[in-house]
């Protein structure tokens, strides 16, 4: 199971965007944990999709978790995902996907 403890609101915002982006596959990864490189890449891509969605919701004044601006959470998301990927041995996947997303 993937559970973020240092910044627990990261669990909440990920769960919100699993629903709003209709990503049941990510729900399964959260439940069972990241088990291989393919899942690590899928999860990493989802995180960047979520960053885009946070952007769009802020621009469109969509209220998420009580606020239309959740950009303050982005460092917390980065922190937790980076720590997770290091602990599971998939940091290189997270780094590679992130480089690709920033092109």
């Amino acid at each position, binding site marked *: 199971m993937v559970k973020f403890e*240092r*910044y*627990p*609101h990261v669990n*909440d915002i990920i769960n919100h965007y699993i629903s709003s982006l209709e990503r049941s596959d990510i729900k399964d990864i959260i439940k069972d944990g990241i088990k291989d490189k393919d899942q690590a890449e899928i999860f990493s891509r989802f995180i*960047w999709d979520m*960053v*885009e969605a*946070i*952007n769009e919701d*802020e*621009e469109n004044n969509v209220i998420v*978790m*009580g*606020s239309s*601006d959740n*950009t*303050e*959470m*982005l*460092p*917390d*998301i*980065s*922190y937790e995902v*980076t*720590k997770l990927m*290091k602990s599971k041995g998939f940091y290189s996947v997270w780094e590679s996907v*992130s*480089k690709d*997303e*920033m092109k």
Partner: protein
Amino acid sequence: MSELLQLKCLSDVKKLISDIQTYRARPVIRGKHPTLYPERLEGKYRTIKGVRICDYQFSADEKWVLPNSRMGLSFSSTWDNLQFVYSMFKKRSKKKPVDIYWVLSEADIPPGLKFIADKENSGHYFLAVTENMHIDQLVRKLEMVAHRMSVMKGGGNVLW
């Protein structure tokens, strides 16, 4: 010191962080406070006088902040660590510039605060409290830190 303050571009900061390892930096969307947060009244993410409850350990009455080496305002000391945070801000902030604020690790920090290395995430530091202090004291100290921070406006575009 005067030489350091004349840095003109992000690549200079990147090299500085890489070479010296005594800087602590954090990206901030322009117009937002570098060390305090907008008021949020509810949830795990709420704030007390601009301080997030998830960043510091509070007493039960939430008037005092208690030392905890695993809690504090978040800073990066390496480019590898900073780039993910910065990139997420840049990714979403298509219309808003992102600035990078940085501070010397020890010289610019008021008594009662200290940078403590995050044992679980290399390149990441907590600006922790080292003694019990009233929330009003912490707010004043975080304002002092903000005042002493240098800023790289715009942050540049080349990260990778």
